[in-house]
């Protein structure tokens, strides 16, 4: 069952300057993004900083209003609603409960003045899911156990926990209302290597139990590969390639995806590979993105047409889309 789909989703942020704060330009954070996510599925979004991956996540949870394009949400009964503009007042509580988010930095995302119990109870309270205090406390204890913490921790404060434990608390809070879609924005990037795997396993376990859908945003290719069924590779607000996870890693089609993969360290001192990385320069600014293909100034295989015409996504193999002029040849 589908949960969210987007059509030609765009998000531009205005740049204001001068005394009267007139709009002098736009940051083109998202350009024509199409995606769809169904129950139980995991979509990975990968790209470098400034590629728009977090903006996409935030546009889907409706932290940001899209500039153009549409977002469609299917509620649990199966009815679909257009939520591109403002969400209907009756629908809002259903949507807010259904779509939850966890953030990168568990040191910022938990209120230092709320106990763990209050933190986890807050969404239950807001959505009036449980009536009595006793039921809520039981639910908090159950959630803490589910994420691998002791129920006794409920009365402690966030500063008493390590980064990994805090991220577990953030996970407990987000799943407390049984969402159908969880958006994870770099959930393991701030954690130590030895703890990162614990959180990944935890998210996978919860997904297996609840059949919830995940949108997993990360810059780490290996982690995204492990988590996802499908992966979307983003560059300067554009989805340049999307494919099933294994297919993307076996046959990366877009030159950017290939470059990204070649830049991951080898973990093998006898076969050092960074010396062979061909990618020059840095991503240009999304304020004045290059004409044509956004990647053409850095692309090792650019053609004359790349700076003029923006390539459309073509299906290079079953379910594998890539937006590059090379494929038409």
């Amino acid at each position, binding site marked *: 069952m589908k949960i969210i789909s987007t059509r030609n989703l765009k998000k531009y942020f205005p740049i204001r300057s001068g005394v009267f704060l007139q709009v002098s330009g736009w940051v083109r954070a998202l350009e024509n993004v199409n995606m769809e996510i169904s129950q139980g599925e995991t979509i990975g979004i990968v790209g*470098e900083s400034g590629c728009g991956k977090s903006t996409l996540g935030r546009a889907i949870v409706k932290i940001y209003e899209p500039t153009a394009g549409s977002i469609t949400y299917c509620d649990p009964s199966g009815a679909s609603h257009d939520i591109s503009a403002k969400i209907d007042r009756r629908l809002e509580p259903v949507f807010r409960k259904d779509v939850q988010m966890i953030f990168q930095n568990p040191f910022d995302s938990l209120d230092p003045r709320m106990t763990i119990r209050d933190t986890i109870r807050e969404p239950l309270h807001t959505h009036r899911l449980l009536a009595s205090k006793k039921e809520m406390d039981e639910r908090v204890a159950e959630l803490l156990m589910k994420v691998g913490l002791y129920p006794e921790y409920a009365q402690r404060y966030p500063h008493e926990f390590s980064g990994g434990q805090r991220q577990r608390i953030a996970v407990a809070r987000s799943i407390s209302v049984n969402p159908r879609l969880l958006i994870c924005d770099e959930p393991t990037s701030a954690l130590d290597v030895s703890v990162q795997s614990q959180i990944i*396993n935890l998210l996978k376990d919860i997904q297996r139990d609840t059949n919830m859908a995940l949108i997993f945003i990360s*810059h780490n*290719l290996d982690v995204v590969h492990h988590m996802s069924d499908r992966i979307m590779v983003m560059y300067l607000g554009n989805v340049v390639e999307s494919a099933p996870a294994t297919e993307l890693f076996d046959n990366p089609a877009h030159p950017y995806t290939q*470059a990204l993969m070649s830049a991951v360290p080898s973990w093998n*001192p006898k076969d*050092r590979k960074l010396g062979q990385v061909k990618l020059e320069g840095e991503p240009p600014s999304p304020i004045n993105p290059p004409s044509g293909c956004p990647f053409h100034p850095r692309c090792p295989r650019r053609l004359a047409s790349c700076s003029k015409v923006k390539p459309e996504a073509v299906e290079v193999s079953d379910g594998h889309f890539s937006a590059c002029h090379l494929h038409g040849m």
Partner: protein
Amino acid sequence: MTGAVERERGREYERERGREREHERILTVRNLKTYFRTPEGVVRAVDDISFHLDRGEVLALVGESGCGKSVTAHSILGLVKAPPAKVEGEIVFGGRNLVGLAETEYRHVRGKQISMIFQEPMSAFDPLYTVGLQLMEVAKAHMPWDDREAKERIIDTLKSIHIPEPEKRYDEYPHEMSGGMLQRIMIAMALITSPDVIIADEPTTALDVTIQAQVLNLMQDLQSQYRGSIIFITHDLGTVAEIADRVHVMYAGKVVEKAPVVELFDNPIHPYTSGLLASRVRREYKGRDLPYIEGYVPRAYEFPEGCRFHPRCPRAMAKCKEIPPPEFEPAPGHTVACWLLEEGDDR
């Protein structure tokens, strides 16, 4: 004046000799202890560690947050404030012990003979001054150059690390540059005084992978061109495999394993090292649970007794809880602080 020239010439000669001798020891750290007094108790952030650095090599200090790798770097540079900190032991550099050196003396070492590259290029620069002025400040503080010569040298250094349009960059402010570009400028800043040792504290952690590759390549080039010695501090074993000659793995203020890089990846012995190497997300693991190390990194004021890794160690014995393990040397140049080796068991 002639004195300075003489000294410069002397140093040049020393450098020549250094190139001839294979293993010229440039920095030796013996029994370094850096403790901090805090309201929670005494934090033994770096607890009795010893290592050395040879000319022209890249030594990686690897570990997770709170293992003491950055405090080690700050101790070498005399950047920990005493009190609350207390630094003990020996840091031998250029024939003298830097521990307890007067601040006026330290200034000739710090930034000149030992320089540092920081993790966050965005916060390491002052946003109110152009990068040129900030580079100039370093150059003028340590080198006998006038303004014109200093600027020439700065532009040359920027050119040597392939920064496009160095003259234009010179007059730009930090906010006008990307993180990757600033990180390269910081590398230039560290190079201007031709230091003997560069300490790089997580220099690529804040950067994207494609930029990380460029910066690592750059550091590799520098190291082979100038035969500089680098202490490379990181939590990422992937980058260690790319750049290091020798690796020291740190955990909770202790060095638990030291080995040449190939040896460490082929034959990790300490359970923490093998745990870290196993935590890598491999493609084969898809659809399965990832291996991980149980528990969490302990906080600095509550490091466990005995071996500090024992509460998370899958092979902990009774002894591990009480007595800190000494260093064993199962192979030349490969030392491990773990009781498992006492029995002659090396796996």
